[in-house]
């Protein structure tokens, strides 16, 4: 999960790219939105690559440096849809978020994720199946309380 401190940086980097490449940005508003999300998607990938490298370096530097705590718990609330989304595997979570919560069309979401529509469909199918189980368990827990 991207830590809270890095979110502003990633958004800033995303819009810097949008600004720098303004002439290449699609004119259609929906495609333009998907284009911006795709840039953000790549920025997040770079963040994870950098994070992996940082963890490796921290290990090599030894006990002199401590790992930074994961701030995910500060970011995800308990009673909103994000808490439910957090229970899904990352790829399913992102696919569902883009199509269901953000409202991108499946075509645009596939463009953002750089995957085929069939792959997007299978991620959504698995997300739905998993959500059905998770939500049913939650109902059961509330009943037994």
């Amino acid at each position, binding site marked *: 999960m991207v830590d809270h401190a890095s979110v502003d940086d990633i958004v800033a980097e995303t*819009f810097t790219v949008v*600004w720098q490449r303004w*002439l290449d940005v699609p004119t259609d508003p929906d495609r333009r939105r998907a284009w911006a999300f795709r840039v953000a998607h790549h920025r997040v990938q770079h963040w994870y690559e950098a994070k992996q490298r940082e963890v490796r370096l921290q290990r090599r530097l030894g006990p002199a440096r401590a790992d930074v705590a994961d701030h995910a718990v500060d970011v995800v609330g308990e009673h909103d849809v994000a808490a439910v989304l957090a229970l899904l595997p990352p790829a399913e979570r992102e696919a569902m978020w883009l199509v269901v*919560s*953000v409202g991108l069309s499946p075509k645009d979401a596939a463009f953002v994720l750089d*995957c085929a529509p069939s792959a997007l469909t299978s991620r959504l199918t698995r997300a739905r199946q998993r959500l059905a189980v998770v939500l049913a368990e939650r109902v059961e827990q509330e009943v037994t309380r």
Partner: protein
Amino acid sequence: MNDLQRAQAEADAITALLVGHGYDPADAPAALEPQDEALLARILAPRPHRTVRRGWLQVASAACVALLALVGVLGVQSKQSPAVAGIPPTLRFGTAPLTQLFAGTAPSASDELRRLSAVAAAQLPTSAVGSPHVESYAWWWASSTDENGLTVSAFEPVFRSSFVHADGSVTSTEDRSSGLDVNGKVVDRRADAAAGTVATDHFPAGTMDPRWALDLPRHDDAALRTALLDRMGGEKFCTATWPGFDGVPYCLGSVLQELYGWHVVPSGLAAALWRTIADEGGAYLLGPTVDRVGRQGVAIAIMEPPGLEVPRADVYVISPTTGQLLSWELVDEAPGEPAGGTVNGFEAITLSELVRP
């Protein structure tokens, strides 16, 4: 119904599922603060030939924030994922194969270590002025999560260049390195167009002691042993952490990786290191080999503590002509493999020098 229609149908079903359980699937992006809106307008204003759609910017900016802050995309899958490689073939050893090592029947490396210590001690001393600069090829084992939530792992070939500056600050640069040929040797990265983006990390002053290796005792093996074990948490940690397992050789070996990975090791110190490990015992001789960058070496192995899924050995390749450590590898026991083990990662030091500021 085509794929896009099926995807939309799934999305509609998820929406219905969430609404049915009292969740609002729509994440309405919060409005931008007036100063942010003004800042965006200023950024985009100098391009008058394009119309700035402020409303779109508001929605997209807030939605990006929401996407990143609330969802996260750990292990996102796409064609842009970093290049990875398969398991490197194991090195070949002239004295004892890995099967013998893991069976506990490999010969002791103490005599060979004393001979290598003498080789190192016979080298001419070099300058001790400057800050350490080390370059290496390494294959790191990296794990991530796939779209089903399963952990997937692969090797990432990396070229690394590090500087420990005089003030103790550290600069470490990595890029995607070249692969291995069919013999498990590193392909010259100058001939490999696949080298990736360079990424540099800086650590502040005081992170490391640039003179650590230069100031370690070279003529008092007991003092050196204490200093090395202190680096790993002390002798008690190394002897008492793993019941029934003497962790001292492992601790000494682990410090080798830190020493050679960041510092320039004087030949006198190398001689003392091999003497100390030889006297300690617990190192096994695998024999002559050729490391990943084609250098002749002598391989010794030290077992890692129990507790891993399979037994693991740290293999160190030492130059028979200079007595310096050339590279090291982590090898897991694999009885089903012809070599008796699989490589879990390696690092080969290709340059180690003191540079003047």
